[in-house]
């Protein structure tokens, strides 16, 4: 009897995930590397149009979580649905389709350093969206570079850009294909406070303008304060706190509140 009941709840979850409200739905995610259990029991969901900030110590597995979401790392256990599709069950082709809908901003920006900024932007347009009208491509590239304030550097090589510019160029390259879901891995780390604030506001602007859903991994409290609709705190392989920025900030838990000092 119990058994069928639990089956029912699982089925209900499947349906609710399929409704399109929840862009991400994760239950019981586990991942270890060798003997090290990095993620022990991760449960969360992200709704459409929401900005969710993930806080956690360095090495706690924040990057691993978002890498699982795009199928770069396969989890040991757990349900993991993105846009209602179970990531581990996808074929290579389906995974590719899913990835096209997701923008992934790497910690380092990950610009292709043998190409100019312009070519970096064109790369996904030509190869992923299969655009071939050069005018249209140029227009799109210029529009996106303008929105991150890099139009002047369009013909520079990545090695000639500063750290902040590289980060913005990386952001522009992920945005150029108009992803529905953005995963930001520490978008402001290593930048000065002013540039950090600019990037954080940019993240917020993007959410408003394109109605994207986002997960933002950060150590930067100001970035979290600006961008977060909801905050999740990761510790020891589990999320130990969840709520709005203010709620989490005023948490009684010693570990959680230590982030805000």
């Amino acid at each position, binding site marked *: 009897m119990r058994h069928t009941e639990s089956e029912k709840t699982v089925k209900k979850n499947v349906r609710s995930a399929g409704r399109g409200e929840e862009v991400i739905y994760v239950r019981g995610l586990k991942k270890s590397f060798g003997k090290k259990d990095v993620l022990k029991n991760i449960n969360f969901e992200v709704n459409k149009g929401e900005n969710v900030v993930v806080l956690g110590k360095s090495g706690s597995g924040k990057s691993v979580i978002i890498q699982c979401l*795009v199928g*770069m790392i396969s989890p040991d256990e757990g349900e993991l649905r993105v846009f209602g599709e179970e990531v581990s069950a996808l074929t290579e082709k389906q995974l590719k389709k899913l*990835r096209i809908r*997701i923008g*992934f901003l790497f910690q380092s920006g*990950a610009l*292709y350093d043998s190409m100019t900024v312009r070519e970096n932007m064109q790369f996904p347009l030509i190869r*992923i969206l299969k655009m071939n009208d050069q005018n249209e491509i140029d227009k799109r590239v210029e529009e996106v570079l303008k929105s991150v304030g890099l139009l002047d550097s369009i013909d520079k090589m990545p090695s000639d850009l500063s750290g902040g510019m590289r980060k913005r160029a990386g952001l522009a390259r992920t945005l150029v294909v108009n992803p529905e879901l953005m995963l930001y891995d520490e978008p402001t780390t290593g930048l000065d406070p002013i540039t950090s604030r600019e990037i954080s506001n940019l993240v917020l602007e993007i959410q408003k303008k394109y109605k994207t859903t986002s997960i933002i991994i950060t150590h930067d409290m100001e970035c979290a304060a600006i961008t977060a609709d909801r905050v999740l705190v990761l510790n020891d392989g589990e999320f130990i706190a969840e709520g709005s920025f203010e709620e989490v900030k005023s948490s009684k838990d010693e570990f959680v509140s230590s982030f805000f000092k």
Partner: protein
Amino acid sequence: MADEVLKGWRGWFAESGEQLSFFKVFFRNLFRSGFEWSEFVRQCYEIGYKSFTLVGTTAFIMGLVLALQLRPTLIGFGAESMLPKSLAVSIVKEIGPVITAIICAGKIASGIGAELGSMKVTEQIDAMEVSGANPVQYLVVTRILATTAMVPLLTLLGDVLGLLGGFVAINVNGNVSLFLYFNKCISSLGFSDLLPAFIKTIFFGFVIGFIGCYKGYNSNKGTESVGLAANSAVVAASLWIFVIDAIVVQVSNIIIY
């Protein structure tokens, strides 16, 4: 001690398996639609054209030295007139292809290993993959095909300049016209000499690109792994070149004689 030997062998087998599956990935992507022509041409330029001077100079000097060394021996046998023939056979059949391939292993395989290795470290390959593009098709297929096409061409250049070096050495002492010299060289080589020599350069080219890509693409994410990728690419590619050389010579001897 025994443990370590065992571990070494296990590592060797594991790596062979990985190389095999990398080959399968390469092969699958080779025939996928959307071949990256412009990147292929760029790689041919980077790999081929930029190695012209190095290969040419080295081959010229090798030919020159070889002629200078062979000459006294042949005079001892009273067979000085055999010099062009012995040069032609040794350069075209063995020295040209192998020297060119070893130089290319040093320059090209290490270059590819370092380039892809650093793309891996700086997450560029991950970024390409996660964006839904195909890094194997863009980075690996183009490079392997470019080396497979360019190493035979570079070998041809090496052969010609090596023979030219030999000509210069001969002319220091004697007096042979360039036309007569090349005529003698070419007439001493048959189709059964040229074909195996040509075929092995294709394998050399493939293995240089393949090992370079394999080592770079599968390197770890630390900064030191870039150097390691470049280094191990040269070592593995050079080893493969000698193994292929031995196999091709054996097989072609069996087929021809």
